[in-house]
């Protein structure tokens, strides 16, 4: 470690604990409490990365989240590496490995640096003007553009870390733990409000906590000492929670805020194991106090981007907080008083302050006088016109400003310096305020945008420097006054506070500082990360891009990972100056969430992997697993798809299952179908209105199939509904449609037909359904329920019986989706698994065969039964499905009826459901394949498509369902299914392929 750059300071870091880390493979040391940036600076490393476009060497410029340059890749493990981490934000930990980004082969020698030489032909928007010839070459140009763009590298393996979410509800949320935030939190706590104070650092106090100056006194103590005592006093409030290392990411409407708490990123790698990495707090606050502070502005002058050029206030933090000298011969360049605090700190710490270049004519504030007393040289009314040093600032040249500030006069003065601190004033951090919907006003004497009190959403307030107060007395006094008013607090412990501070007496601002060279020969950077300069902004304006948003997008100013925290105000200022507009009228660009980049994993929390979505399993699921079922996802349900035996393929299994179901007995878990219990004196009338057919005359004990339409007349869902009693029905829906059907029915009941006495309850999960079909189904039921009379007279098709299995109530329904003689056992779900096993045992002698959805689909297709969602797509009416029989002619109205008589829905040449047989009976069509009549027609006219297609083992041939234009009239017609490799000839048939007379229902 380069000890000459460290001074002994132990208030905030622990210089007794040495931490080793690696930067670009080189082993280095820092101390506990360092950031990566402070540790690098202590090792005399300024050059950290290369810029986005010109690959210019760049160093650490700030000490916080606004850092545009010192962005590194952390770690090299493919699962845990992290790109684009700000060296200024990451706390040093044992084993930290960091790498420079966007440079090859190294940050010291970067081939991409050639772009800097080409920069004259790479102005803003150059890519819109070139790479167009020859047209086919764009992909090649783009390949290189893509490889030279980007910063760090994405991980390439799945993240092993855990992330978490937590909700918080509080009376008051204070954002920011600087002096105004600490005062606000204490006031809220004194009022008795449940208060949360959050701060993104590991240490409260903002910049005041190291402001150890005679010129800044609160109650006769130096401001830092006073604040330290205040922070200590916060601990006594039980109603105040302090969250450090927590960064407020987004401020949405209705005081809904998101904050990220970093839990392990500061720990050594081995301490992180099995801990949650980051937590996203979802906060609802009754009141929000924003105390987000302000950040220092750079100055815009020629070659203002060299490593070693650092914000003045950051230099102060590095020396006062971290005990790190950012150089041995430091100069300062400023337009305001705050650089003088830095000068005094440096001087007191034994660092040579070479010169202060101040663009102002003079200042007689106390802090300036104090600096002068220390013998620091000040060059008033000057500006820097040039800097030298490619990888580290070595020297600079200053010249005197003309009286109007627009030009330079006199001779160049050269200074040697290994570090320049720059200060262009302060920008209030109004990002969160505007995210919440607040509007800004422009305060011209400070050239800042601040919250407009009259246009602030209710239940929030901004205090401190984010509200435009920069002097210590204003910060303290206004915060106390405004917060007391905001939370209706009459008396507080701050009522006799006394603040004494140096006051700024002179102000001057020049957005773009002049140089002795013409502008186009200079490089005055605005957006350091994206390499956009003042020249680019002026070029954009010349080309007619006038709106701030146009300039931003054309020049990419403010679009880097710092989101323009350092550059936006200067861009606005230069636009205003160039176009002669008032900055207030220009407005700002939109500040978009998040305030600082937010890890995807944190946003998602635990909802990954097996928690991605619910998995619904039937009560018989484990049996299916034990019996080697393959599963199909149907909505959130897992349904057995088929049950392969002894290495069968799916085709083989389905053929076997289908045959067994027709020849002897098959068993299906049908529990996933939606079940809605419908009760009330108007239940029949209700069904009349929601289904296309009539229900009033359905006898108790009988079942009926129903089609449900959308109000636009298209088939929506279907299923069998059973009348259990005079005023009691149970409706079944499709598996995927269950929730939507229930919602839709409730909607109609509550909003259109509140007069109906009907109650709906979903019982899908409460009852399980076991369907047994095939010629031996009757024999199996007989074995399980010996005392049930199964004769066709007593228990005909489409009816149900209440019964008991081993003393447990159940409903047996004789309904069939396969065309076979079938029974459905409905039983409380907790008994279902046992009943299923009993059925398997009873059916053993009949070779009872469990089958899955694929066989179910095949069997119903043999019978021409539709599956809504597969054979329909939301564009088919019942008539299109050749189901005119199900539309009641007598009913005055039902959902969707009116839509069936519109000019388009009555057309006869609509697409209609038909059956298809392939000329080659072995040829199975692909579902989704299109149908055409004349393959040679240009453009080819598609008449429809195949919706369902199977090889039927029971018919020994391929069968399919399709929807075809004018299909009803096309029976017997030959069509072509054009596949990529060949055309397949098919004939249109009836939709029923098997047992057209329905004899097997009663077999």
């Amino acid at each position, binding site marked *: 470690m380069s000890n000459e750059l460290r001074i002994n300071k132990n208030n905030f870091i622990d210089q007794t604990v040495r931490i080793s880390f690696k930067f670009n493979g080189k082993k280095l040391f820092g101390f506990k409490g360092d950031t990566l940036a402070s540790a690098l600076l202590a090792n005399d490393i300024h050059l950290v990365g290369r810029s986005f476009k010109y690959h210019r060497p760049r160093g650490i410029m700030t000490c916080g989240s606004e850092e545009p340059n010192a962005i590194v890749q952390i770690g090299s493990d493919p699962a845990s590496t992290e790109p684009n981490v700000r060296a200024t934000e990451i706390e040093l930990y044992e084993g930290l490995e960091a790498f420079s980004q966007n440079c090859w082969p190294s940050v010291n020698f970067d081939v991409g640096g050639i772009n800097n030489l080409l920069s004259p032909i790479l102005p803003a928007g150059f890519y819109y003007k070139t790479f167009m010839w020859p047209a086919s070459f764009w992909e090649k140009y783009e390949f290189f553009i893509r490889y030279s763009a980007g910063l760090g590298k994405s*991980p390439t393996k799945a993240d092993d870390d855990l992330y978490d979410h937590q909700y918080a509800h509080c009376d008051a949320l204070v954002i920011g733990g600087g002096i105004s935030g600490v005062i606000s939190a204490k006031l809220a706590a004194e009022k008795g409000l449940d208060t949360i104070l959050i701060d993104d650092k590991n240490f409260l106090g903002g910049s005041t906590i190291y402001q150890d100056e005679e010129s800044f006194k609160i109650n006769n103590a130096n401001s830092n000492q006073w604040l330290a005592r205040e922070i200590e006093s916060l601990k006594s409030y039980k109603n105040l929670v302090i969250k450090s290392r927590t960064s407020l990411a987004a401020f949405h409407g209705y005081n809904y805020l998101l904050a990220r708490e970093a839990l392990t990123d500061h720990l050594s790698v081995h301490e992180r194991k099995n801990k949650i990495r980051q937590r996203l707090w979802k906060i609802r606050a009754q009141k929000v106090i924003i105390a987000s502070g302000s950040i220092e502005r750079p100055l815009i002058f020629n070659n203002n981007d060299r490593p070693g050029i650092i914000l003045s206030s950051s230099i102060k933090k590095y020396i006062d907080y971290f005990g790190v000298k950012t150089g041995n011969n430091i100069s300062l360049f400023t337009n305001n008083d705050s650089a003088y605090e830095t000068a005094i700190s440096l001087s007191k710490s034994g660092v040579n302050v070479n010169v202060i270049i101040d663009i102002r004519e003079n200042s007689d504030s106390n802090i300036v006088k104090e600096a002068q007393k220390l013998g620091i040289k000040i060059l008033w009314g000057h500006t820097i016109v040039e800097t030298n040093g490619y990888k580290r600032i070595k020297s600079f040249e200053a010249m005197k400003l003309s009286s109007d500030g627009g030009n330079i006069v006199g001779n160049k003065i050269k200074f040697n310096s290994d570090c320049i601190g720059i200060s262009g004033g302060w920008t209030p951090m109004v990002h969160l305020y505007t995210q919440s919907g607040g509007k800004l006003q422009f305060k011209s004497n400070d050239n800042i945008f601040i919250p407009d009190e009259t246009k602030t959403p209710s239940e929030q307030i901004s205090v401190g420097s984010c509200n435009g107060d920069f002097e210590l007395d204003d910060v303290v006094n206004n915060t106390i006054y405004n917060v007391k008013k905001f939370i209706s607090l009459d008396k507080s412990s701050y009522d006799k506070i006394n603040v004494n501070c140096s006051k700024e007496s002179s102000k001057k601002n020049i957005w773009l500082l002049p140089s002795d060279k013409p502008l186009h020969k200079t490089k005055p950077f605005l957006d350091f990360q994206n390499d956009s300069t003042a020249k680019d902004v002026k070029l954009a304006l010349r080309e007619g891009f006038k709106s701030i948003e146009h300039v931003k997008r054309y020049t990419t100013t403010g679009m880097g990972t710092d989101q323009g925290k350092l550059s936006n105000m200067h861009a606005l200022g230069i636009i205003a100056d160039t176009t002669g507009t008032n900055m207030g009228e220009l407005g700002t660009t939109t500040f978009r969430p998040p305030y600082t980049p937010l890890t995807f994993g944190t946003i998602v929390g635990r909802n990954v992997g097996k928690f991605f979505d619910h998995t619904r399993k039937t009560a018989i699921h484990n049996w299916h697993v034990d019996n080697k079922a393959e599963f199909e996802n149907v909505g959130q349900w897992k349904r057995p798809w088929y049950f392969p035996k002894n290495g069968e393929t799916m085709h083989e299994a389905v053929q076997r299952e289908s045959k067994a179901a027709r020849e002897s007995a098959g068993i299906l878990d049908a529990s996933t179908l939606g079940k809605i219990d419908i009760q009330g004196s108007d239940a029949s009338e209700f069904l009349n209105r929601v289904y296309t057919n009539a229900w009033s005359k359905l006898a108790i004990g009988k079942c009926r199939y129903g089609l449900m339409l959308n109000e636009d007349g298209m088939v929506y869902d279907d299923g069998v509904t059973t009348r259990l009693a005079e005023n009691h029905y149970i409706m079944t829906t499709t598996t995927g449609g269950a929730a939507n059907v229930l919602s839709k029915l409730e909607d109609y009941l509550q909003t259109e037909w509140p007069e109906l006495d009907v109650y709906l309850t979903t019982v899908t999960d409460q009852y399980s359904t076991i369907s047994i079909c095939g010629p031996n189904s009757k024999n199996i039921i007989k074995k399980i329920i010996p005392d049930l009379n199964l004769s066709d007279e007593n228990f005909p098709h489409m009816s149900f019986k209440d019964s008991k299995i081993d003393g447990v109530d159940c409903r047996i329904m004789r309904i069939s989706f396969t065309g076979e003689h079938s029974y459905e056992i409905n039983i409380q779900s907790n008994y279902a698994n046992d009943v299923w096993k009993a059925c398997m045992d009873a059916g053993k002698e009949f070779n009872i065969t469990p089958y899955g959805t694929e066989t179910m689909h095949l069997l119903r297709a043999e019978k021409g039964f539709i599956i809504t969602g597969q054979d329909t797509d939301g564009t088919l009416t019942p008539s299109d499905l050749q189901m005119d029989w199900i539309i009641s002619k007598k009913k005055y109205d039902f959902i969707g009826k009116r839509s069936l008589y519109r000019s388009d829905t009555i057309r006869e040449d609509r697409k209609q459901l038909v059956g298809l047989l392939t000329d080659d009976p072995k040829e199975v069509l692909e579902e989704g394949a299109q149908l055409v009549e004349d393959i040679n027609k240009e453009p080819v006219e598609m008449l429809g498509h195949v919706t369902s297609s199977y090889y039927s083992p029971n018919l020994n041939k391929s069968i399919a369902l399709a929807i075809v234009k004018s299909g009803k009239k096309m029976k017997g017609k030959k069509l072509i299914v054009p596949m990529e490799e060949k055309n397949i000839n098919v004939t249109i048939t009836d939709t029923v392929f098997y047992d057209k007379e329905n004899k097997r229902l009663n077999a």
Partner: protein
Amino acid sequence: MKNKYSIFSLIKNALSGHENWQRAWRDPEPKKEYDAIIVGGGGHGLATAYYLAKKHNMTNIAVVEKGWIGGGNTGRNTTIIRSNYLWDASAALYDHALKIWEGLSQELNYNVMFSQRGVMNLAHNLQDVRDLKRRTHANRLNGIDAVWLNTEEVKKFCPIINTSSNIRYPVLGGTLQKRAGTARHDAVAWGYARGADAMGVDIIQNCEVKGIKRIGDKVEGIETTKGFIKSKKIGVVAAGHSSVLANMAGIRLPLESKPLQALVSEPVKPIIDTVVMSNAVHAYVSQSDKGELVIGAGTDDYVSYTQKGSHNIAEGTLKAILELYPIFSRMKMLRQWGGIVDICPDASPILSKTQVKGLYFNCGWGTGGFKATPGSGDLFAHTIANDEPHKLNAAFNLNRFVSGDLVDEHGAAAVAH
């Protein structure tokens, strides 16, 4: 003619310090009367003006924009361009646009960075497979390049997708349209604006329409913040604000304007070289030339003109992204924003005359209008110039909501991006 953009003009201008570039477009005050006015200076509106001037010799026209051109959904979308739609009418419309995209940079002499890196649509359940295969077959017969990929081929084309069979909704395959891709959204608006301006079209920014004047069943002009502007033909291309303008003209539209969100990550070196969309696991992602992952989220279910959506929508989208790309867990969201999308009941657009003579609407593009920009402009220009739709936009008339002849793109895609 404006100065032509090329590498040579860049070098030439570099020599003079880039001081001599011409304005990309003028900043005129509105005239008293135009032959046609386009309301809305987004990509579609500017393209409409461009083609009115170029193909129909209507140069005495204006585009009025209440803010800055390209500032609405043109500058807020995820820039996906494809034409693999299900229905013939949609496929023809979007492929017409895609064909124009293929030569657009050259036509406009403005690099819109149309990048044909392919668009893949993933299937996650058996019905997805049927629907996507149906679309692929229809596309092929309609002359649109589309192929079906099995899971291994999906993995090969985009190796970072998690195609493990152990995830909640495994990838069962997908379709690929290689001609599809992305473009630079701002450049489209700027390129059309520059081209239209060069032919004499007045592009009037910061000019908000306050009223549409009708005399009987004919349109007469617009009241704006810059005064009354007369015209017998008014084409409204106002996306999320279409209903507001329709209301000024006393007509109603079958639209709802809802928030749609999108987000980008911090830029990284190339990691995904195509566009991948998934409807069932609702996520779609591509990587911009700058290196940002560009991710589209869904719409909220309520009407809002605030350009802000709910956090849970964005959270749900990232959840889906991490399901399919667990390697992105440590990537960071840089920016998140919202747009206002005008959605039709059948998820298809309206490019139509109205019952008011001389008043035309181009709206209802929902979540997927960017891809249609050149085609939409071309066809809308045709409709305005001839007072009759082109055959490619005939199906997208307003009367379909009366007759029932909808172009229902919900059928194949729950969300028609």
